[in-house]
């Protein structure tokens, strides 16, 4: 190494200069920089620009979508209950909820008694419930059906997810590393896009690269060299295809992970929840979502997952508890968002991969079924019931409910009405839109 590089290693250097030098060191300047490096390190598209508050003023119609995946197949019939339908009580001698226990929405339908959180949002006009949501030729495998919802494709496998394609199609905060985020330790399929990087985090405070406190000087050099090694291993053009493309993926993600810690640190400060969130994993995840969307990070889409809804046995108590946890968390989240003055800007979409079999099984549970209700929460939604409740007396050959609204109609409505984008660009074709939002 030339002498001057030693001095550059010995004193703190602007991180962008450092990465540029790191890249020069591995010969990047003569190679074509991959798109991710341009995006992450080019000054013209530097993530810091997204933090300029004046930019927010240019996007007054900013809308945030929080997608809450309820994994395992939530029992739609015991969530939005047809409490005036005798056929429901006949099919579910053990699991049906008595009319007087339910929380009525109108003279036909009622919420599960554990859904007080949802009821209070509904009564304020901040909950839209879409009934009978499903798709043709339903797949009753959790994983195959999730794939259908994740990719918005019923007839084949798609590389990208619907939210990833939405990101690709929208210009909104294009330059922010935090324009979309996942809360959790996975990289959910719906966010897979042509632009590969979507950060995942467990919490804002934990999102840091740690170094050894006993050796602060070496710690600083470690960060420098950590980035140089990632750049070195990402840089070789051969590497892009080598090792099944995995080396490129890991090095790109590693570089952007670090960049996104810096960007997040700059964009977040002093968030305080303005309500008491329940002490549950999904409420903690939504609290993190609130911290992101109220920050200067420019986040437009947040993904949160909760599970445990595969209630094949002993459903009664279990399902109520699961619903209570989700309903209370969602209410706390929207109360917090409202207290931060963003009520009109944040919508939550809560979905599950399928509903459950109409007839209960011999284990006091229910097996995999088909259509079910989907929920949208927020001040911008057109509160009330949408779509048609499927009839318990009119089932398919497998004993399952027939859907009345294709889930892609919901996606199309969100894409068009919330993000002002042509749904066909994201969904590959037109779907009937429902009036799910007040004019924003």
């Amino acid at each position, binding site marked *: 190494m030339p002498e001057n590089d030693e001095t550059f290693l010995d004193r703190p250097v602007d991180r962008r200069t450092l990465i540029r030098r790191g890249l020069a060191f591995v010969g990047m300047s003569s190679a074509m920089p991959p798109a991710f490096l341009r995006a992450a390190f080019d000054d013209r598209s530097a993530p810091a620009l997204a933090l300029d508050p004046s930019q927010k003023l240019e996007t007054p119609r900013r809308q945030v979508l929080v997608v809450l995946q309820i994994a395992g197949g939530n029992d739609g019939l015991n969530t939005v209950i047809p409490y005036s339908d005798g056929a429901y009580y006949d099919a579910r001698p053990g699991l049906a909820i008595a009319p007087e226990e339910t929380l009525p929405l109108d003279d036909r339908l009622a919420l599960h008694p554990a859904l007080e959180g949802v009821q209070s949002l509904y009564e304020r006009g901040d909950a839209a419930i879409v009934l009978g949501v499903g798709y043709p030729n339903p797949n009753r495998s959790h994983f195959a059906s999730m794939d259908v919802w994740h990719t918005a494709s019923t007839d084949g496998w798609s590389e990208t997810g619907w939210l990833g394609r939405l990101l690709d199609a929208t210009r909104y905060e294009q330059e922010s590393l935090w324009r979309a985020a996942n809360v959790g330790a996975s990289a959910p399929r719906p966010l897979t896009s042509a632009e590969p990087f979507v950060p995942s985090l467990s919490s804002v405070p934990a999102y840091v690269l740690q170094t050894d406190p006993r050796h602060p000087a070496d710690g600083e050099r470690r960060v420098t060299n950590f980035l140089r090694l990632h750049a070195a291993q990402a840089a070789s053009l051969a590497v892009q295809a080598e090792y099944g493309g995995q080396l490129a993926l890991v090095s790109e*993600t*590693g570089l952007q992970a670090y960049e996104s810690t810096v960007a997040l640190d700059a964009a977040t400060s002093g968030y305080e929840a303005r309500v008491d969130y329940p002490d549950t994993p999904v409420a903690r995840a939504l609290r993190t979502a609130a911290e992101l969307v109220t920050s200067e990070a420019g986040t437009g889409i947040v993904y949160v997952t909760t599970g445990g809804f595969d209630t094949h046995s002993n459903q009664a108590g279990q399902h109520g508890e699961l619903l209570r946890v989700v309903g209370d968390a969602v209410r706390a989240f929207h109360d917090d968002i409202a207290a931060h003055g963003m009520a009109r800007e944040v919508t939550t979409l809560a979905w599950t991969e399928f509903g459950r079999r109409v007839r209960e099984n011999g284990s006091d549970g229910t097996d995999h079924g088909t259509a079910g209700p989907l929920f949208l929460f927020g001040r911008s939604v057109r509160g009330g019931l949408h779509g048609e409740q499927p009839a318990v007396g009119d089932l398919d050959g497998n004993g399952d409910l027939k859907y009345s609204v294709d889930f892609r109609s919901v996606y199309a409505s969100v894409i068009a009405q919330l993000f002002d984008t042509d749904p066909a660009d994201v969904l590959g074709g037109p779907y009937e839109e429902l009036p799910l939002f007040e004019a924003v």
Partner: protein
Amino acid sequence: MALETERARIQHLLRRAGWGTSRGELDEYFALGLEGTVDRLLDPAAVDDSASDAAIAALIEDDPRERRGALIGTWYLRLLTTRRPLLERMTYFWHDHFATAIHKVSNPAVMQIQNETLRRLALGDFRALLQAITRDPAMMAWLDNRTNVKDAPNENYARELLELHTLGEGVLYTETDIKQAARALTGWVIAGTRRTGGDPEARFVPRRHDGGEKTFLGVTGALDDTDVVGILAERPETAAFIGRKLWRFFAVPEPPAALIERTSEAYFSSDRSIAAMVRTILLSEEMYSDEAYRWRVKSPVELVIGAERALELSAPLRREPQFTQTMGQLLFDPPNPAGWPEGAAWINSNTLLARANYVNEVTRARGRSVFDALALVRCHGATGSAAEVVDFLLDLLVGGDVDAGTREVLIEHLGGEHHFDLEEAAASGALAGTVYLVLTMPLAQLA
């Protein structure tokens, strides 16, 4: 051709069939040669593992059948200390395949029993394994077969048995086959321990069983669980499904039909022996092809166990389960019946930061460090120059074969060749820092 020498091939084999290997272990395997190493790995009974038993006995106070922490800690400690790496590797493979999670099962005793069953049958007859799992109390609780009764069957186990354990999603079967299989699987409950004093076990209750005629995958009769298991274990689709998964686990990302044919042949010519399939893969040319090289993303458990075994820690951190959990994986607690999402799904900004922060935790200085970088390089005689130290670490931790730029950054981190002073590098944190950098670099996430 990346894997030209036998030495490189053995290191590659151990990255796939082992759990990270100390320098001393590597030398033992090098002496056996490639075929000798495969023979050794596939004959775990011939290897004394009592030191691992003793380490577990010394460090885990509670009974793994009574305490969740002891249950989980015992297996992590087994992985850190075993001398039967392939046996544990296959136990781990089946744990993911027949993924059962304590978050629903809750009773550590039945999770420990399942773990012992998986280990006992990991390399045996697949049919015997499938039968044992069908009557395994943890699985019966996890997928509800213990409450599957005639007249109103519970489809949970039947569906996942076909979709995830044998045929693959949508292969060969219909929704009707699922319903018919569910009927055949009725009648089993878990017999409690209090009365018998023994382990919880499956018990057949005739009045709960549907003894009527069923037609499952074209076979008609008064079928029961043994019939369903037998029909599935003899299907070529099952051999292909398991074979494909094993090829991916050990060797290549997209095994072509000809390779899957080869493991199916091994399966049907050996009374469904899993060991025969694994041997076919480990001794194949494709196992050592360019396509097989470094495409697998290490799972969190592979990363953590691999690092700690290679670094010869004086004692385990004892927080390995928490660390792998922040990276997205906790043994005994897979997220759902499909097991952990693999490969690229392990990689996102959250998990990569968690991986780096774990390595920082292992290598950082503290009052009583469990890792001594200076002792490690001295013990293996890699002290003469910065390049010698770096090459030793690269060989140990990623099997060498890195680009010149990477090697140069590491040498520089150690102080460079001209001013190399090993003791000073150790005192300043630069030596531990070099280990940190090797273990956090992108190549170290691949196997």
